[in-house]
Structures are given as C-alpha cells and as structure tokens.
C-alpha cells in the first residue's frame, strides 16, 4: 500500500503471511500512535483496515504482515506495550491463532 515504507529484505525466501488484529481505544491519538508503530518499525504491510470492534469506545485494527512468525511476534509485542491497546491477536496462514504474550 502507498505511504508505507518498502519491506526490508526478509529472512526467508517466501515469508508467510500473518494477519494481525489489534483491539485498541477508539481515540484519535491512540490510532495515530498505532499507525506510527507500523511506519516506525518499517514492517511490510499488505492491507490495513480499521473498524469499530462492536464494543463501545473500541476499534479493531487489522493488517496483513508479509513476514515470518518471529517478525510477526516482534510487531505484536510493540503493539502490546502501547498504552491504549487492549489485545493483540496474530493469525498465521495455517489458521492457528495466538494471543501475544507479555
């Protein structure tokens, strides 16, 4: 997508895709900070979607990360320590789901 820095060379030849879902406060400054994490950490993103989560005052940010599990976990950890983030889910291409541990 435009506006996101090009992916850095990936460690494996064909990195798996991971879908990351972040539940976070529906506040502009929190959302701004969340996008900042993606830009700042220079990670390869393929899609980015923001929706109301269904819970009042909460949004769901989802994106597809073209990276291996280690990189996906690293990104999840950066989100997890962000104030205003409520949970982070990493969905691997084999449909296994993990909640980022802290």
């Amino acid at each position, binding site marked *: 997508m435009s506006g996101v820095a090009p992916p850095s060379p990936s460690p494996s030849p064909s990195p798996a895709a991971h879908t990351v879902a972040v539940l976070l406060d529906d506040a502009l400054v929190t959302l701004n900070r969340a996008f900042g994490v993606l830009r700042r950490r220079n990670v390869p993103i393929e899609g980015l979607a923001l929706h109301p989560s269904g819970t009042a005052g909460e949004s769901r940010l989802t994106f597809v990360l073209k990276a291996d599990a280690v990189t996906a976990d690293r990104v999840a950890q950066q989100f997890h*320590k962000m104030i205003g983030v409520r949970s982070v889910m990493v969905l691997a291409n084999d449909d296994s789901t993990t909640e980022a541990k802290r």
Partner: protein
Amino acid sequence: MSEMLSGAEILCRALVDAGVEVIFGYPGGAIMPFYHALPDHPRLRHILVRHEQAAAHAADGYARASGRVGVCVATSGPGATNLVTGLAAAHMDNSPVVAITGQVSRPMIGRDAFQETDIIGITLPITKQNYLVQDVTELAEVVAEAMAVALEGRPGPVLIDVPKDVQNQKIEYGAPRARARGQSRPLTPGASGGLEDGVRKAARLIAGAERPLLMVGHGVILAQAYAEVRALAEKTGIPVITTLLGISAFPDGHPLHLGMPGMHGEVHVNRAIQNADVIIGIGLRFDDRVTGNTASFAPQARIVHIDLDRAEIGKNVPVAVGIVGDARDITRRLVAAVEPRRCERWVEHIHGFVRTRAESYRGDLSPEAILASIYEASHGDCTIVTDVGQHQMWVAKLYPYQRPNTHITSGGLGAMGFAVPAAMGVHLARPNGTVWAISGDGGFQMNMAEMATMVQEGLPVKMAVFNNGYLGMVRQWQQFFHEKRYSCTPIWSPDYVKLAEAYSIPGYRVKEASELAEVVARANAQPGPALVEFMIEQEANVYPMIPPGGSLSEPIEAAPAGAAGD
C-alpha cells in the same frame, strides 16, 4: 469543601501532589497562565533555562540521578519543538520525564494560529504517551496518570499539552478522582514455559558453560540491581561487561570487571564476547553499537536475555532463553538458582587478550591524566555527565567508577549538547554531591548559554571542555573512512576563560599535565560553577574501533596506512 480554581492552579497543585520539587522551563504566550499561578506554589522550584532543549535535558539528568520524574515546561510552538531533542534522548535512554507544554486556545487549534504546532503529532514516536487536555476537569488526573506512566515499567517521557483557555478555565475543584486506566497494564514478568522454568534453564546454561559472560546495561541501574549482579558474578566467577549505559552498575577495578563492549570496547572485551559460549544479558538491548554486525556477534554463544520489555527479547539478537522481568527480581532468583562455581581459566584466557597501545597525546596531557585529576580532586566521589563524541568514549573507558549510577550520558540518541544542561539536573537531584559536566569543544558550544542558568539559579556545576579544535569523533571517521578529508570538522572556539569571566564564573585553561592537579582541585573546590578548558592533542583517536557494521572480531587498532595523524 471545594473551591473555584483555574486550570493553571490545578496544574501546579497536581505537580505538588505528585511530589514534584523542581521544574525546568521557559515561559511564553500559551503557558502564561501556568507561570501566573506558579509563584503561589513555592514548593515548585522553577529553573529558568536559556533554551527549552536544556530544560528537557536537565529534567532527564534530574530523573536519571534521582530515580524520580523530571519535569520540564515550555510554551507552544517553538517552545514545544525545542523540547523535542531532549525528549528523544529521554525516550532512547528510558528516562522518566514529564513535559508540559502550553497550546493555543481550543478554538484556535487546527487554524495554524500564532505559535501553534501539533506537538502531540511531533512527539508521538518519542514519548510513551501524550495527552492533549481538552477539558479542565481531566487535568489533575492526567497529571497524576502522566507521572505514573513515565515511571512504571520501562520508564520514558510523557507529554501533556494544555491549551491556554483550559489553563484559564475555572472549575469547582475537589480531590482528583482516580482515573480508570484499564489500558495501562504493568509489564508482567514471565518467560515461555514460565518464569521459574526460564530461571532454571538459565542456571543450567551457566552450570554447563566453559566461557560464560555477564553483560549488564541500563536496566540494572534503573532496577538498582547492583548487589544482585555482584552476587551473581561473585557466586559464579563470571566476568562482567558493562555497556555504555551500564557503566557504574558494577565497580571498576573489581577483579571480575572487564569493561565496555562494542564499537569502542577494548579488544579483550570484544574478544571475550566472540569467544563466549554463554552470555547472560541483563537490562540491555544489544544495540548496534554493542554488537557490531549481529550476524557475526558472539557466534558461539547461547544468549540468556533478561529484560523488563518483552519486545526487546530477540529483537536484535537471537536468544536461547528470554526472561521478562525486573532486573533485580530476576537476578536475585538467578543467584538462588545457580550453583557456586569458578571461571578462573576463562578469566585468565581473557586477560591474555589484553592489548596495550601506543597512543599519541599532546605532551602528557592525555585523557587518562585529565580524568585521573578529576577523580583525585573529587576524592572519587562525584557524578560525571558526558556529552557525545571522543571525550565520551575516553570517559567511558578510563574513568574508574566506584559508585553506582555516577555516570550519566546520552547513549541511545547520542545528543551533543547534553552534558551541560543534564548536569544542572543532576546537581538538583544530588545537591550535596559534586557534578562534573565533561564536553568536547563542539558539544559545549551547543548549550554553553546554560552557564547563565547556573549563575542565576546557583547551580555549582563543574565544566570540563576537552578542546582539540575539531569535532573530534567525526574527524576520526573522516580519517578512517573518508580519505582524511576533514570537511567542516575544524571548529573555532571562543576564549573559554574570558567567556567564563563574562558569566562571572572562574575559568581555567590547562595546557600541560603538570598543571592538572592544582587547577582541577581549585575548580573542584569552587563554591559555584567553574570551567576548565583542556588543550588536548588535536588529532588523537579513540582506539580500538569497530567500523560501523563491522564485526567485533576485526577492530581497528591504529590509523590506517596513509591516514596520518597518530
């Protein structure tokens, strides 16, 4: 009983309630209501800096020396943007700083008003959290929350942006309600398979290791895990490496202390890393100045990484065991879990790597001699604050630190101009101790206007300027990697002795080593600030050096052929 208070008065009260005693700041249009209220709160000592960058660095220095939150205040627009470098430095080095900025009134926000900047947007990536206070009823709670967020977990800077009309708004003020903060969770300790399992695995690795190393960083100082780290080292005989920000976490001169690793680490320290089979890293992030090229870093070692921040484990180097938690708590558990052992052959082996170099200095006026004179004059009992560059590396390698947390420097950001203002903050945190700000002639000139702050506010900082007439570290890189083309690195200095005199500060110049002891002792004994300029060799280099991106196994130990200078 409640009373009618303005936002500005609430701001002052909230700071007092949070235990704040010192504020570094600079007034201006959008923060004037706060400054109007300030004199009614004598518990808040305000230090009027000469540039807002100095306010942020001073708050950072105060925070690092005291372990409490450092507070800085600036107006909107240029005042706020001038804080940015200081906040970035605090962010990189995990220093708890709260910055309060004035903002244009709410109806003017977004209209490109006079002195309006989006300081929230500007500081998003260099703060842990920031707040635009849109409602005066939230102000007291936001301040309390900001102070807590800055300190808790991995510390860092927080910014509170307060529009001028919010500062002027009056409300009936009661005791602040506790704000619901379900989102800010403390970092919980753990490891994959559980905390105890992680500690057991680490203890097993230590037991089986032939060439183990301890690498300790800033996290040990933040957690005050000095006794625990020392107990671990002494129980196991494992030699200890201290990173730039870990310096003084373990006493220099201890038989197990090796020194600083990385780009300017001594050869034997880096060789030890390259030969180690187990590395226990506590409270460090294995940054590139420590590891060199990560692909060739510690090729034989299995790494145990103990850090408060889960996101650091495995970020830069692959780890065998990652343990998330407070350095003091985890190290204490590890001390209990390990069997006593010795590593005498390994330590002896490392000592075999020690190199001596033929350095060239101006006469006998070597960095080592200068630092020894400061150590002697202060009886080994002072805090050293360094700037960034060659002098910073000389201090890191040569100053014999004995007391914990007496070495303060801008490590991650590497901000020139840090030392002088940060030393003012250190003095206010440790009013009974001596503080020396050591700078080069480049960095000193960035914030030397703060001498006026020292005089006006009575801050007896001792300043040492290493004058080589160059931006020395850049010149060294030019010598090694840029065909010795000294582009824009020669730097003119004013007469520092006269400059000090202009500020009514005693100033001294040292040209010969024979003058050192007497002059430095005289400066150290001054009741107020003092400045000493040291005329050092112009083209001295910091050796050894790992080229940027290079391997720790391949240090530069002398000037490359054709590159004259020393």
